[in-house]
């Protein structure tokens, strides 16, 4: 979706403000939100892409104004409601009022912690050879899906070159819709800064994205 989350190249947000001696969490509730998000995702088989899509669907003014973990909290809460794991009456009372709904992978217990403290693998067997090879010229497609995609707007329609082939990975666009088994070849595609930003762009700049095969056309 063409949402505010897709912010590469937007102007007007001001300087980056690094914080010296930044703590891992700025309040205890942030840590609880992170842990609840990881555990509930694992317990109910929510892919990373489903969770990202939930955050992208937060109202744009909220998305731009909220802190990181506020976004995580409200997106997770919406997923819990949408999947029938909690309801509004429970949120209002602050307690469980109904029996638990079944979780796809069962409750998340202490013994399950190691499996969420390591990033998973997204490699899948390929059912066809890679369409492109290193050095091939490609153009990012001008597509505007209403649902989740990982093709950022600032490269759409622009020409680049295949720099690396990263393997055949789970396709986020379908994974966000609940199908985590579709996979596509993944490429590092490099774009010249002036191809993206015009003749006034930084001449020393190149930018790469990680692009799934269906995001690209041959040139």
């Amino acid at each position, binding site marked *: 979706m063409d949402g505010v989350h897709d912010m*590469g190249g937007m102007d007007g947000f001001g300087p980056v403000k690094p914080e010296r001696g930044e703590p891992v969490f700025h309040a205890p509730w942030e840590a609880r939100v992170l842990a609840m998000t990881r555990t509930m995702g694992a317990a109910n088989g929510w892919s990373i892409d489903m969770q990202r899509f939930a955050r992208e669907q937060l109202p744009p003014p909220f998305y731009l104004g909220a802190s990181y973990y506020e976004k995580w909290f409200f997106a997770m809460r919406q997923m819990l409601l949408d999947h029938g794991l909690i309801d509004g009456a429970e949120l209002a009372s602050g307690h469980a009022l109904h029996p638990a709904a079944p979780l796809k992978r069962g409750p998340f217990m202490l013994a399950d912690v190691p499996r969420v403290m390591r990033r998973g693998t997204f490699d899948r067997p390929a059912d066809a050879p890679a369409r492109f090879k290193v050095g091939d010229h490609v153009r990012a497609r001008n597509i505007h899906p209403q649902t989740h995609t990982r093709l*950022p707007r600032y490269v759409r329609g622009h020409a680049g070159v295949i720099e690396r082939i990263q393997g055949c990975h789970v396709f986020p666009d379908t994974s966000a819709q609940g199908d985590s088994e579709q996979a596509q070849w993944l490429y590092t595609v490099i774009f010249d800064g002036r191809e993206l930003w015009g003749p006034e762009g930084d001449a020393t700049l190149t930018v790469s994205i990680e692009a799934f095969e269906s995001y690209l056309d041959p040139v």
Partner: protein
Amino acid sequence: MANPDHHHDHGGDHAGGSELSDMQLRVRALETILTEKGYVEAAALDAIIEACETRIGPHNGARVVAKAWIDAGFRKALLEDGSKAVAGLGHDSRVGEHLVAVENTPDTHNIVVCTLCSCYPWDLLGLPPVWYKSTQYRSRTVKDPRGVLHDFGVTLPATTKIRVWDSTAETRFLVVPMRPAGTDGWTEDQLAALVTRDSMVGTGLAQPPGKAV
């Protein structure tokens, strides 16, 4: 009130501020519901938080960089297959798949960003700092990386090529900064102390000797 249904503008990314107690109450209530329903064990939440606050962090990445500086065979292996090379080191926090290490040189400076969300090699560098997840960093880095570097107090020669890596998939990028001059003969531990988190994202340089903290 921080609520997507009843929004008011409170300007930019921030840590919570006046939202704090409101968020604290909301989060506590949701945790109560989830644990009362038996969906999640509170001890599991505690264990995850403890790991994030202690075990994972940039010290793991700094060791990888320092080893690459002194061990040519490891450097080559790291640049060829980051996950495989790092897996061999036996870190406390095991590093996941699809780690891509990219090396800074006198000609080219690498910077990592995630314009679409907040993808970051957290299993090697710890959880991302607020600035990495901010609208400011996510919007500007792909277009004006020198301006972003300026915000970090870093100025590169005008001729240095800047390479920005937008983390749009599950590959994760580790920048191997240039080894500071004047560190000949230093041990891996001494060198690791010069490797800052920002230098492994590309928004900083490794510390010169004498400035390590």
